[in-house]
């Protein structure tokens, strides 16, 4: 039980507290490019989750064998290999999605977040922890992709996952599925996350002060 308590934060920090898109603002190219529909966003999210988790495991396994001087090329080769696996699988089983991802699937290789997790976490931690860290970051990434793509699809074409959600009188706001809409939406989402974080910090500070006051009163 204690072990579980210790491991849970490693997974959960990627979801919100250190969300790769909203908080760390890393790997934004895909978040903007493929989030025109929920299904595309989800595919990209799952692909990245797969790549980041497997890469963390691989890097963690070989961390004692790699000379620190050549570690970055080793990580990049490992990432590129895993991305190629993902590419081949998508191409074979989901050709439509593969086409929709286009060039951005190959560009998963150079996502800063994947290399960053390998460098910051997996190269210093054991396999289980690295797996959880990668999986958490991947889930956080997928979550962000879902939020962005749901908003864009809903406003831009009035549908969700291809089903008509808005009433028939709804005039789709085309700009949202075009590039400018993506930029502007991300701008506001970043601002929203910032506000929410500041608010949470304020509440936490208040609670800490209250606790201290109570302690003093007891003393």
């Amino acid at each position, binding site marked *: 039980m204690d072990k579980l308590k210790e491991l849970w934060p490693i997974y959960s920090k990627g979801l919100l507290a250190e969300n790769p898109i909203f908080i760390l603002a890393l790997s934004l190219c895909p978040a903007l490019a493929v989030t025109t529909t929920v299904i595309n966003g989800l595919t990209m999210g799952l692909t990245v989750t797969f790549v980041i988790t497997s890469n963390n495991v691989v890097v963690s396994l070989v961390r004692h064998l790699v000379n620190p001087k050549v570690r970055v090329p080793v990580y990049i080769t490992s990432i590129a290999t895993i991305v*190629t696996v993902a*590419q081949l699988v998508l191409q074979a089983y989901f050709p439509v999605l593969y086409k929709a991802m286009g060039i951005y699937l190959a560009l998963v290789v150079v996502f800063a977040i994947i290399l960053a997790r390998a460098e910051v976490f997996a190269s210093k931690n054991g396999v289980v922890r690295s797996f959880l860290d990668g999986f958490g970051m991947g889930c956080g990434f997928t979550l962000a992709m879902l939020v962005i793509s749901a908003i864009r699809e809903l406003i831009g074409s009035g549908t969700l996952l291809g089903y008509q959600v808005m009433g028939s009188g709804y005039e789709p706001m085309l700009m949202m599925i075009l590039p*400018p809409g993506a930029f502007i939406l*991300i*701008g506001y989402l970043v601002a929203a996350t910032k506000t929410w974080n*500041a608010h949470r910090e304020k509440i936490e500070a208040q609670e800490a002060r209250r606790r201290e006051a109570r302690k003093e009163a007891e003393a």
Partner: protein
Amino acid sequence: MAEYLTLFIGAVIINNFVLTKFLGLCIFFGISKSFSASVGMGMAVTSVMTMSSILAWIVYFFVLEPLGVTFLTTIVFVVLTASFVQLLELVIKKQAPALYNMWGIYLLLIATNCIVLAVPLLNVENSYSLLKSIVFAIGSGLGFALAIALMASLREKLVYADVPKPLQGIGIAFILAGMLSLAFLGFSGML
């Protein structure tokens, strides 16, 4: 000739890599705080992209395709561009220290950047000829330089603006990029 011109103009403004394809956003937002730095970055990206496109084109059509291992394209191109940039850095440091002092820092940043990888990939995906690849790479690089220079001049003006607190920094930068992108959308359908 007209074909090349179309390709070039298309790459510079109509399919601008940053504003319509979202490539190179990390450096786009990271460097665009000062105008002079953004011009340097734009030039560095253009030259690196052109040279790595030529290299990648040769490797793809003379090695990967004859051997029938085109599924290795992603791995080979990543290693190729990353090691090429490192090599270029070493050479410039040794041969032209003045140039290195000016642009050296940008080279490190673009070693594993999506825009430098994307252009060679697009070249082989569309099976452009070598000359077309070069034209496309130069066009894309200049398009990037144009976008980042415009963005930097806007952000330098932004210093005097009263931006709401949550939007300060990256938030307003995204909205500005959205406006720029909207302006560039006006070019679509021109060709």
